[in-house]
């Protein structure tokens, strides 16, 4: 009996966690008139995608999605590359002073973006990178690589020594060892790092809000956040915007779960 009480209280918790998503989806499918008569909790009587379509056109949502994909995808690829290079030197090359270099990257990961934002804004204006996606890509490459360096260095410190030795005896130089041995063997971890970097960059708000101001460069969260701040939308349009913001996150969530499991099991088999 007691364990059923535990089960039911956890189900109630799960429903409470999901309720906001359900309410948003319900109202995104209503007409404004229906919302006005039934309020936010009534079920939609006839489902319409008009609110979503209107919002999509109004903010050019396809463009925002593309921007977010370009930025997050580039950052994820570059952050993995930079992390691999760093971790190869620190974990396998064991360069001198590696502990301090690692601490420098960790501190970089901990610093609040508020303490860099104005100089970055200023420098971006001086170099002509203000309001370009390149500026955001460069910044988040190192922000995510700081975490990736930390994660990968501990993985590479335990890299099977025999594999490296065998390749060296075959006459491979450092670059060849990295590309032919280290990267393929650590692919599962690199996959996890890629996914994390992608999602974290997708969700970033503060620096993209400051650096990206025009319609052609803004990401999904920035565009939605700015629009929300202007308080110009009616209730159904707000829920349509929230739903459009939620959907990519849920899609990534499903992909992310699989990758993570793959990463963990691959690590266990080793």
């Amino acid at each position: 009996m007691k364990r059923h009480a535990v089960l039911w209280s956890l189900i109630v918790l799960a429903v409470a966690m999901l309720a906001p998503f359900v309410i948003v989806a319900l109202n995104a499918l209503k007409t404004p008139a229906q919302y006005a008569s039934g309020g936010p909790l009534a079920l939609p009587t006839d489902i319409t995608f008009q609110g979503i379509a209107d919002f999509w056109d109004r903010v050019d949502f396809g463009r925002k999605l593309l921007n977010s994909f370009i930025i997050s995808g580039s950052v994820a690829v570059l952050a993995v590359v930079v992390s691999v290079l760093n971790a190869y030197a620190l974990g396998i090359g064991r360069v001198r002073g590696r502990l301090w270099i690692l601490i420098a990257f960790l501190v970089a990961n901990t610093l609040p973006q508020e303490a860099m934002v104005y100089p970055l804004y200023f420098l971006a204006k001086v170099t002509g990178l203000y309001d370009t996606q390149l500026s955001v890509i460069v910044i988040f490459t190192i922000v995510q690589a700081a975490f990736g360096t930390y994660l990968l260095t501990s993985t590479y410190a335990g890299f099977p020594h025999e594999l490296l030795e065998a390749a060296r005896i075959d006459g491979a130089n450092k670059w060849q060892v990295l590309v032919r041995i280290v990267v393929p063997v650590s692919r599962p971890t690199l996959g996890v790092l890629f996914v994390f970097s992608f999602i974290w960059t997708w969700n970033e708000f503060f620096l993209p809000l400051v650096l990206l101001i025009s319609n052609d460069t803004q990401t999904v969260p920035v565009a939605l956040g700015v629009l929300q701040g202007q308080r110009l939308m009616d209730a159904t349009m707000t829920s349509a915007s929230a739903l459009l913001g939620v959907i990519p996150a849920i899609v990534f969530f499903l992909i992310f779960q699989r990758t993570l499991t793959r990463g963990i099991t691959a690590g266990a088999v080793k």
Partner: protein
Amino acid sequence: MITRTVRERGSYLLFLIPGALLLIAVILVPFVMNVGISFTRWQGVGDPQWTGLDNYTRLFGDSTFWSSFQHNLALVVAMAILPTAAGLVVAAALFDVIGKRFGPRAASVLRACVYLPQVLPVAVAGIVWSWILAPQGALNEFLGLAGLGFLAQNWLGDPDIALWSVMGVLLWIQLGYPVVIFMAGLQRADPSLHEAAELDGASWWGRFWHVTVPQIRPEVFVVLLTCTIAALKVFGPIYVLTRGGPGGATNVPSYFSFQNFFEKTQVGYGAAIATVLTVLILVLTAVFLKVQNRGERA
């Protein structure tokens, strides 16, 4: 031989060049510039005027600054302390009761439900909630239907309640993170200790407190540290939910510095706020790591 290893190691330094250059250009130089700016009066255009410690003395007499830190403490409770405490109970219940009696599939589905808010962009989570918490929003409507209409509030517009509402939203966002980390930790923990305690007749609560929690202490430390840092940096939810209002009732250092940088163009003052926030975060990180180190050695 020795010279060879030195040269061997030396050439690995080449691999650090891209990361090091980016670190210097994007993190280190801007950070040092920010500290420099904090000693000046500057509107963002023209030449900054050196004013020494003026910004800092002004800061310590500024009640907005102090109240923003008080609000930050409340957010630490909402984002670090409560999620850790609740996360321990939920993770243990999912692992011990649901996973063992109802199957791992049920446990992972429930875990996924609790974790879902974590993958949302915080700005989007803010939009979802600002709409639910609006005066005519879903929460007040729900209270009315449940016969609790007298509880209806202007959740984000009332200065006495807004901070509590923000705390609730952050708890909703944050809870999934400790649950997932703790469940992974419990899988690593040794089940025989747990079974021994059960045979000795220890209650569920006794086993939870004396066996489960000590075994995942490293995870608890990591979660407390990362969540506390995240709470000190909170910006997106405040920007979307309340803009620091009403009347500064939910202002936090991060948003306060943003206001000074970009709305009031008091760049030097904003830089001073950001610098204080940074020092606080670094000190806190160092203390946490030190305590954790001592705990591991003991």
